[in-house]
């Protein structure tokens, strides 16, 4: 039996894969998104800082900058019809020493060069006026009004839901192990499942990008996942800062950030640790304690706040700083690799850029005349939430005020949660200060029929 053949097979359902699946589906092609895990957003995209970056500090002239600028613009264009939040906090690069202070004019100049023209240097007094909670050895700052916070899970989910609603195909629990190109058609071998055929393959496999690239060619880039750990503080800490507090960056990373989240928490992180593990992002007690100490130094009132939890994410870093995006016309292949530390912002721009590559190398597109725009449920306090609606169902997660019907819907939706992690990311149940102390039973009762292996009677 020959399998159905798709125009495009995308390998990897991270934020990049979800955005590209959406873009090519809306462009009128038949697309299948293939993901090895039981749910989408299970790789690099599940643990980040959730900042929609302006690109003020990206390398001038880089592809990363272009995709971020475009991604930033597109997010602002589509977030409302998709039901996605946007919390306009602005960000502040804060200098804590004379040495750092001396770097601020350069940061402003680079921002202006990058087209982010509203960036200005501000004095220590102006920093303190905006952020009275910061420690008093602040030396000065740079104000970036356009940096914003978004929901890092609902955004890719919304892109995926729109692709699905408009005819896209999703294949979960499907690891691509090899592939061959014959007569202009790829046949991808899937572990424990039937092969998949497609004319064009898009590699957006995140931390496995170089391994997947090897299906088409010897990979020109090597991934060394760069781990970032975070400490999450409980909601009473949310008001300690108004804007995103960024450090003066180093060559390797944006450094330790203090930021609110769209869910009403406060984050301190991430670290930047090169390590070999591609799939499991572990946390380490000593590192988390150091993050907490660093946070308390910058924001003394944090010391009296409760820690909710900690998490880690793995950035798909390569030997190159820039994104590795390329079309291989002879191989019917498009690569989107090494989307290291700005992919949440860049995803929609990356997808748009890849659409351009497709049109240049593989053919014309006939966009859907009137695509559907399904809205995702809102999880943030920036928009009304179900717990505050008349006729609400029972609240089962008390810390995050998640109702029974939200959990039930996430388990039975068109793109249902495939794991407990996926359910948490779709609803925020068990994500709060008690981490399941009060709600495990209720969540388990609802989830066990849908997600295998959680409990036995």
């Amino acid at each position, binding site marked *: 039996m020959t399998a159905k053949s798709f125009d495009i097979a995308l390998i990897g359902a991270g934020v990049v894969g979800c955005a590209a699946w959406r873009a090519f589906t809306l462009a009128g092609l038949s697309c299948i998104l293939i993901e090895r895990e039981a749910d989408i957003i299970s790789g690099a995209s599940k643990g980040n800082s959730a900042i929609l970056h302006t690109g003020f500090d990206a390398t001038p002239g880089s592809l990363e900058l272009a995709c971020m600028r475009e991604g930033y613009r597109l997010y602002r264009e589509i977030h409302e019809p998709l039901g996605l939040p946007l919390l306009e906090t602005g960000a502040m690069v804060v200098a804590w020493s004379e040495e750092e202070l001396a770097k601020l004019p350069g940061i402003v100049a680079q921002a202006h060069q990058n087209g982010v023209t509203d960036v200005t240097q501000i004095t220590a007094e102006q920093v303190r006026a905006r952020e009275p909670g910061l420690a008093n050895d602040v030396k000065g700052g740079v104000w970036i009004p356009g940096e914003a916070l978004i929901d890092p899970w609902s955004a890719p989910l919304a892109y995926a839901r729109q692709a699905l609603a408009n005819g896209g195909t999703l294949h979960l629990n499907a690891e691509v192990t090899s592939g061959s190109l014959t007569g202009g058609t790829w046949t991808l071998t899937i572990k424990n499942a039937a092969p998949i055929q497609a004319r064009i393959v898009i590699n957006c496999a995140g931390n496995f990008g170089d391994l997947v690239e090897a299906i088409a060619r010897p990979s020109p880039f090597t991934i060394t996942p760069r781990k970032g750990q975070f400490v*999450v503080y409980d909601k009473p800490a949310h008001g300690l800062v108004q804007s995103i507090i960024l450090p003066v960056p180093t060559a390797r990373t944006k450094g330790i950030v203090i930021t609110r989240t769209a869910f009403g928490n406060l984050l301190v992180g991430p670290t930047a640790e090169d390590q070999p593990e591609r799939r499991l992002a572990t946390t380490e007690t000593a590192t988390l304690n150091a993050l907490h100490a660093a946070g308390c130094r910058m924001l003394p009132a944090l010391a009296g706040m409760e820690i909710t*939890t900690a998490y880690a994410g793995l950035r798909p870093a390569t030997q190159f700083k820039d994104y590795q995006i390329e079309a291989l016309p002879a191989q019917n292949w498009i690569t989107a690799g090494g989307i290291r530390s700005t992919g949440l912002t860049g995803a929609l721009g990356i997808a748009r850029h890849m659409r351009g590559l497709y049109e240049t190398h593989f053919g014309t597109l006939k966009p859907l005349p009137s695509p559907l725009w399904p809205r995702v449920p809102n999880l943030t306090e920036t928009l009304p939430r179900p717990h*505050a609606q008349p*006729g609400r169902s029972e609240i089962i997660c008390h810390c995050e005020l998640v109702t029974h019907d939200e959990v039930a819907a996430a388990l039975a939706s068109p793109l249902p949660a495939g794991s*407990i992690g996926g359910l948490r990311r779709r609803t925020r149940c068990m994500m709060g200060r008690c*981490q399941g102390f009060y709600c495990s039973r209720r969540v388990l009762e609802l989830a066990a029929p849908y997600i295998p292996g959680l409990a036995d009677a």
Partner: protein
Amino acid sequence: MHNVAIIGAGPAGLTAARVLLQAGISGVQVLERNPQPGGLPRFCDHQGWGVWDMHRLYTGPRYAGELVRRAAGADILINTTVTALEPNGHLHISTPGGPEYLQSRIVLLATGIREKPRGARLVSGTRPWGITTTGAFQEMAQAGQIPFRRPVIIGSELVAFSALLTARHAGIKPVAMLEPGPRILARRPGGLIARAVFGVPVRTNTQLLEIRGIDRVESVLLERNGQREELACDGVIFTGQFTPEAWLPRSAGLQIDPATGGPAIDNFFRCSDPAYFATGNLLRPVEHSGFAALEGARAAAQILRALRGELPPPQAAIPVIPGGALRYIYPQRIIPGGIPIQLHGRARHAHKGRLRAMADDTLVFERLIRILPERRISLTLPGAALTGRNSLAVILD
């Protein structure tokens, strides 16, 4: 406007409601976010409840039922979550009918306590399924949902033995009980009983270094005397390290004692905004249900006085400061006067020494004590001895 709103229908809140009703107070509302009142005991399906406050032995669920029965006549609103406190006793609540705004002369906070989960303990490792707390485990077990078969139990406070009892009930066998310190924290039943009765090895001086596993817990990495060992298991139950459920008063800017994690109160159970009173395990980690219930009754007695306008103005309070090996002391503020003043605290570590209370520079209390970290330290001072003083220090040296 209601007279009194009580947040939380656990042992403390329901007992307070009963006392207020018996005193003839009308307009007492108990707000409870769960579909059933009763608080934490509802899911603790073993004996040992009610001894202190009811002088009878119940299982947790029966005790919860008894608390509700004895508070009959109170207006208990279930499925009602308080989402924010505002000054002067104004509450934002979420009800099935929609959000509401509630105003009472006095609000009693009785929101209880929870165990510190893995996340907040910043434990190293992966984050697979099968990591829980005693409270969650007991609730799941009672519903017949067992997430593991061979968990490891972290901690040895009394509640860890509660987890052992539940495990035995549910027919699962923990692989070990781990205690980082040199001895079991619970006075009874102790390590011998854990081994003999439950067949579970107790390992003291043992640190949990890391949790391992991809989708499910597969093992834990331990360290004892510098030696590391990987122990196979399929779950981790974190017990104890209690944290008051204090986010409401914390978010509202009521004064929180960083040492207890609960709201700071005066000796009339008043918070820094005197429209708010607090009682039960919200006040500190942790007491058994009977103590929390009796505390609910004592707070209710002060609320009755407040409704009659009999309490002294809160501004008259002087601070109580813990010192030496004392981890915390409460009430955190006292108003010296005619009545004796009861203080409770805990030590940082096992300690043998002198407990003394200094009113400014004057020694007003002294006792030799020998104390374990999880045991309550109580002292009563004659109120008159403190009149005219500026502060009270309670020191364990």
